[in-house]
């Protein structure tokens, strides 16, 4: 393809990427090193609020922002603060003192590290499960009778169609309190079951939900890949006396390897941003994720305060985390590509 043609093909998407991905990223990067705060003043204010029959008035010294007479907006100052917001998120001093004193558990009481622990574990536990389950469904469908394949594909794709937040809410409603499934389990085992009362049951449900939700995606990709397996190689393997498992291990899996890497890449990126499960399961008391942490910093409280700088720092840290996770599979894809060019 001529360079000019190529350029005009990709120009719109490059423009969009610069506008909607690169520019916000740079802005967040800059904000993570800045703090913008209103100029505050202390004034004595008398506030009257209703009781039931009478009014109570209190006079107190309040700290309120200064409002600029001309613009009518609050005056703010912006200062460069270096890595202070990162320090506020990471709390390295507490981290090191926990390591120094040997109380490793204390690390997990710092929000960021607590979130990182779960996010990493969530990503790494679900990854092999998604690939494994996806591959199993693909093999099963591939071996099913032709007349059954259509309906089976349709049914196995259903979980993927559900909006993630709705899916996690459904699981929550099935299990919370006396939800249908909890009630059934309780009747069956005769024990009082509370799935949302401790961290490990919530985490289990989250793993289960994510695998259930994403496995169909892996399945579709693998199923397409299975159609391109070289039949000659397979037949010669059968003639050589390879068992079913050996054919899978030495013929099919190597053939699907680029797809496995592809799914791993997508899954790592998606999972590291785990968020819907936290909101859907209301698990903030027990389990939080990095993305939720950023969201929490950004949510204004009743007085309208948001921790924008810390949110920016935490977002940057999340991105760094994804990049580190992706280095391994990306290196492999890159090597494969280089090999393919010969």
């Amino acid at each position: 393809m001529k360079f000019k043609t190529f350029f005009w093909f990709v120009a719109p998407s490059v423009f969009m990427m610069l506008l909607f991905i690169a520019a916000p990223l740079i802005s967040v990067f800059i904000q993570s090193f800045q703090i913008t705060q209103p100029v505050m003043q202390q004034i004595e204010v008398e506030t009257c609020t209703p009781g039931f029959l009478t009014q109570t008035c209190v006079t107190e010294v309040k700290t309120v922002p200064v409002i600029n007479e001309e613009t009518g907006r609050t005056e703010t100052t912006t200062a460069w603060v270096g890595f202070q917001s990162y320090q506020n998120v990471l709390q390295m001093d507490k981290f090191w003192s926990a390591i120094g004193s040997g109380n490793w558990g204390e690390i997990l009481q710092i929000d960021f590290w607590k979130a990182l622990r779960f996010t990493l574990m969530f990503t790494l536990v679900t990854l092999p499960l998604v690939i494994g389950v996806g591959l199993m469904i693909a093999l099963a469908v591939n071996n099913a009778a032709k007349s059954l394949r259509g309906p089976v594909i349709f049914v196995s794709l259903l979980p993927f169609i559900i909006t993630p937040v709705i899916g996690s809410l459904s699981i929550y409603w099935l299990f919370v309190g006396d939800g249908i499934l909890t009630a059934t389990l309780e009747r069956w085992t005769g024990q009082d079951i509370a799935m949302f009362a401790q961290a490990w049951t919530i985490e289990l449900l989250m793993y289960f939900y994510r695998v259930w939700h994403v496995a169909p995606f892996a399945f579709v990709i693998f199923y397409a890949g299975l159609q391109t397996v070289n039949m000659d190689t397979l037949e010669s393997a059968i003639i050589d006396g390879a068992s079913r498992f050996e054919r899978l291990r030495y013929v099919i899996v190597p053939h699907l390897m680029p797809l496995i890497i592809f799914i791993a890449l997508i899954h790592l990126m998606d999972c590291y941003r785990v968020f819907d499960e936290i909101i859907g399961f209301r698990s903030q008391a027990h389990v939080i994720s990095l993305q939720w942490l950023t969201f929490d910093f950004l949510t204004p409280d009743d007085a309208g305060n948001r921790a924008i700088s810390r949110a920016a720092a935490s977002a940057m840290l999340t991105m760094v985390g994804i990049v580190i996770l992706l280095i391994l599979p990306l290196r492999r894809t890159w090597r494969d590509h280089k090999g393919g060019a010969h």
Partner: protein
Amino acid sequence: MYLKKLALAGAVSLLGSTAFAACSYENEVPLKSLTAGFEAWKAVTDAMAECGNFQAELDQEFRTKQPAAFEANPSLYHIGGVSNGTITPLLNAGTIRPLDDLVEKYGQNLSPNQLIRVDGQIMAVAMMVNTQHLMYRSDILADLGIETPSTWDEVFAAAEKIEEAGVVDHAIGATMKSGWNLAQEFVNMYPGFGGAFFNADNTTAVNSEAGMKALDTMKRTLEFTDPEVLVSDSTYVQQQFQQGKIAMANLWASRAGAMNDENESTVVGKVSMAAAPMAMDGGAPATTLWWDGIVIAANITDEEADAAFRLAMEGMDAEMVQGANEAAIWLVQGYEPGPLAEGAVATATANPAPPAYPSTTQMGLLHTALGNELPAFLTGERGAEATLVAIEEAYTTSAKEAGVLE
């Protein structure tokens, strides 16, 4: 053209026949409002809509939308529904206007009690009060011969008897969903033990003896609640009551009406209201007082403000209250406190009275810090003292960032 006229005529005649029926005048200025979405607001905005040309947005996420929407010029809404917690960002940014002249013009039916004054100027008009107070199953307590508890110790004693009798799944329900709800439980309990939230220099004072006692009481509650209490918000507790699963809860007065809703509730007429329990003898009930009311945006023309306030007064009149007497503890004339209001009235008129929820920038920050740090204590991951230190640190970090601490 002819068609358009015909359609318009049809629309106007329709409006004329039904919509304007209950309004004393016809509103000609297009107006919009953004308020919370609970029953009382529905009643008020419905009454306003009767005057025409009015669009109401009822949204429980109003608190995150309101500051930015009112800062726009012209403001995206004319009328805002606020509580003493959520008025702070609007006051701080100066995006709501003083109402003194409008009250003089249209506010003949307001009682002085409704006028929220900040520094002498009327900044909001309250329509109802809200508070968390004790709701209990009077039939169960009567069966077991338990007096209505007036302190938390009595609540726990009653809870023990109820659990022994095994008449409900869990003796106590609590709005302890981690985040805002859980923090509010502490904000109720802590002043009940005589604690002050802040020192004079804006640092927080929660790391104190009263703080320890408040945490202790909250933890004792867990013995009698659903093990999943850290996901339960007001609606969840309300449903537990309605389904007969709990016997007592310190719940919002605005939820009382739902107990007698025959479509949802299995305990119609069996739930009574009493003052919020005291944390210590001779103290105030361990709760905070809230009000809900309306504000008018600053960034609109005076004509619009005039029309908006007039409309709001029409929505908050005696006629509206008579149609929705049970929806709230109204401050509006014509309200007749029924049995459902007993608890709220007893709480608000107690001596000493519980404090109003403080509407300050610092309180917003502390509320967030509480909501994030308390769960670790209640799940047992962290001790009480360490939790209070963590709250203090979290508050200090965000207060420095927000510029209220040096």
